[in-house]
């Protein structure tokens, strides 16, 4: 096994919920991410799955150094990223890039797309004007756009094309890891497939690793080598994607799978419908956080927190059913 590109160790992020402007008082802490560990290997895709509020986006923002972890460490190639400053931070920024969900908000409307793509190169003084222009042309071609489109503004592009521009901008500094936060969910079905194919092609060419944050299991199945399922800030199940899709263990993951509506009528067999809604992360249930909605809940689920335990090679589940 080669060394991991990125390691996340016991990551926690608690947001203080405050009231008042001048004399603030803390009402409580939202445990957005609570003890999360995983690793991403070079050239691989890790899928981070869960519903809104599960902490997947907060996790990705900590990896992007946009949020400071409350606890825990993030290591890129063995080096911790907390407290990076100046040159070291610039190096990290060049290695870890991002594409976000909303193609309408991802591009500065007043900036030519060529300039947006070149941004990371300009900031890092990567080369002179001509060299950067050549790299921008190369990137546009790589994502399936025409080089002369560098001179256009975002409003001249469709959503799918904008998402390609965003990808080209992320690729500019030849990163080792790209955080893809719901990269296709804002796109139309036919455009979505184009984008997914493009992402896979680029990974095959450049060997870049992806952290794919997504809610759509079918997308994760097609893209990810390894899948992590989160619920209320915790990892409930993680496994190689093929293993996970072959045998789903955790009741929450099962519920997620049965909520996937297949484009095949009458194929909804053993459906688990969850009762109620996700509890507030301000006051999450004790012990197993899923026990309030779990159809298989046992008395101990409300008392003892189930640890993440390996049930088969690489496949770990946090559930008392698998002890």
């Amino acid at each position, binding site marked *: 096994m080669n060394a991991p590109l990125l390691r996340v160790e016991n990551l926690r992020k608690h947001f203080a919920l405050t009231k008042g402007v001048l004399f603030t008082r803390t009402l409580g802490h939202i445990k957005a991410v609570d003890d999360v560990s995983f690793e991403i290997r070079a050239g691989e895709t890790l899928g981070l799955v869960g519903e809104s509020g599960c902490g997947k986006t907060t996790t990705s923002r900590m990896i992007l150094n946009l949020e400071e972890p409350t606890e825990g460490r993030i290591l890129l190639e063995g080096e911790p990223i907390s407290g990076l400053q100046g040159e070291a931070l610039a190096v990290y920024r060049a290695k870890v890039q991002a594409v976000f969900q909303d193609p309408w908000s991802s591009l500065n409307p007043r900036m030519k797309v060529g300039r947006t793509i070149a941004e990371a190169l300009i900031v890092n003084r990567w080369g002179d004007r001509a060299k950067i222009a050549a790299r921008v042309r190369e990137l546009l071609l790589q994502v399936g756009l025409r080089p002369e489109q560098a001179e256009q503004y975002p409003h001249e592009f469709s959503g799918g094309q904008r998402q390609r521009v965003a990808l080209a901008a992320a690729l500019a500094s030849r990163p080792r890891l790209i955080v893809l936060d719901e990269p296709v969910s804002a796109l139309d*079905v036919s455009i979505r497939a184009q984008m*997914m194919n493009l992402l896979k092609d680029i990974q095959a060419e450049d060997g870049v690793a992806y952290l794919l944050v997504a*809610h759509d299991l079918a997308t994760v199945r*097609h893209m990810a080598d390894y899948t992590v399922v989160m619920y209320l800030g915790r990892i409930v199940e993680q496994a190689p994607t093929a293993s996970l899709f072959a045998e789903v263990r955790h009741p929450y993951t099962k519920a997620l799978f049965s909520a996937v509506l297949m484009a095949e009528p009458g194929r909804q067999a053993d459906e688990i419908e969850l009762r109620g809604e996700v509890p507030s992360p301000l006051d999450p249930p004790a012990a197993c956080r899923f026990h309030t909605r779990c159809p298989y809940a046992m008395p101990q689920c409300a008392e003892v927190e189930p640890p993440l335990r390996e049930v088969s090679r690489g496949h770990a589940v946090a559930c008392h059913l698998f002890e």
Partner: protein
Amino acid sequence: MSETVLDVRDLHTHFFLRRGVVKAVDGVSFSLRRGEVLGLVGESGCGKSLTALSLMRLLPKGGARTIKGEVLLDGENILERSPAAMREIRGRRISMVLQDPQTSLNPVFSIGDQLREALLRRHRAPRPQLTQESVEALRRVEIAAPEQRLGQYPHQMSGGMKQRVVGAIAIAGQPAVLIADEPTTALDVTIQLQYLKLLKRLQVETGMAILFITHDFGVVGRMCDRVAVMYAGRIVECGPVRRIFEAPQHPYTRALIASVPKMTGPIGRLTTIEGQPPSLMDLPVGCRFASRCVQAEPRCLEAYPRTVQVGREHTADCWKVVPA
């Protein structure tokens, strides 16, 4: 049982802008039977939402006009009714649920106020009775502790809960037709499943017909009896759900279904549809999908294809399909 409740014939709604005419809905025909769920599927900009707004006669300001066609609700063309008569029809005979529960509810009124107002449109009744009925309405959409919810405001509820309230308001007037425009797109998957099941149950209980607008074939498979596929302002294929999934006839439908990532089967390259839909301001004379169609031939570019009956209740607009 197969009584038609809503019959839309050759509907044209265009935007008249300074720069030209945007033919957003350009010859849409379909019918909806009592107690049936018809899916209207298509990608953004195909005109599906504008079709719904045309039916409600709630066209956005800024040059949109329905210039042609008939919308027969129980045999009566509602496009010819006066605005006052239309207000009576909306909510009572035809109602609507929109995508974003956030903007569907008025943030400054309590849930109870908004429900009572909706119920008042059904019948005049004293306030305590309306309150009692509001509690019933919330119970029907499976909201726990409805008495306490009445005094709450929209911001105190989750997205799924709000969408249930929106549903309760929409069906308060016992409409014969409910138009649901992407009602679950803003919801999480497990909440989506709950909502769809609820909607289906209510539909079976009340016998109302639902026009379900979505871009998601998964939702279609779960909810609909029949499905109409829209492309660039027209319905290109319409048929029973099972037929559309198992034997789609129009090349667009086929490509669209193929491009959805699947939960089973081999993981390979996804099928894509190359190119972009045509500009609605400058539509081609021929088949609108021809420029992206892998099977296109010269005649596809020359004239818009006739509507072919390809099976029982199954039609497709394509030169290449074989009539049944």
